């Protein structure tokens, strides 16, 4: 293996490591952001409406 190839291999390995590292950070950031959105969401109102519809069908 030539020196040039070894350099390329090391570059690829570093890029893969960084991709994994940044990928995890990205997932965490998305989770935090979506979690925040989920907390803000009006679940009670949404399910309240659905409950009403289900109740009407039941009746």
């Amino acid at each position, binding site marked *: 293996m030539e020196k040039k190839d070894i350099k390329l291999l090391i*570059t690829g390995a570093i890029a893969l490591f960084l991709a994994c590292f940044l990928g995890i950070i990205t997932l965490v950031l998305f989770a935090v952001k979506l979690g925040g959105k989920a907390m803000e969401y009006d679940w009670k109102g949404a399910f309240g409406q659905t409950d009403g519809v289900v109740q009407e069908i039941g009746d």
Partner: protein
Amino acid sequence: MNKTEYLKKLTNELGHMPYGDVQDIIQSIEEHFEEGISAGRSEEEIAASLGDPKELAMEFKDGVKFKQIMKKRKMSDNFKGPDGRGRIFVIVFNAFVGIECWILLLAAIIAAFCFLAADFAFIGLIVAGLITGTLTEFILPFIFLILTLICVAVFLVALLILGIKYYAKGLKSYIRWNKNVWNYGLGEE
């Protein structure tokens, strides 16, 4: 061709190899010449038995050791005709293993290339989304996603360069090995 001329030509052909390797090769060839001369052979005879310097250099570049090359030369000198078993082996091996493996490796390279194209397309889409303001709520995660995808792209480019280079190199050696088995047999005797 005498010893000096042969070594000069060989050194020229080995030009792109590391200096240390060239020195080792030249030394082993010089020793071979000395052994031959002490056995009563002429320099021209020894040079002819070594074959074309260009071909010899190519074999060294492929990583073949001097002992192996000499063994091959001896085999071709003692060669009595094509070996039927070798030809059957080449056909059967390529039909069931060889060609399939090379196609599989080629498919992996093409898949990596497609993955790289998709990666660039995805980066482009996110950047367009950020510029047009469609992704305003998730700016930070998307910036990190772009950085991740850039790193994936760098990894894939490195993988593809090395993959294509060694695929071509390996395929060349594989074809040469097939030719050798086809012409000279398996060399079990």
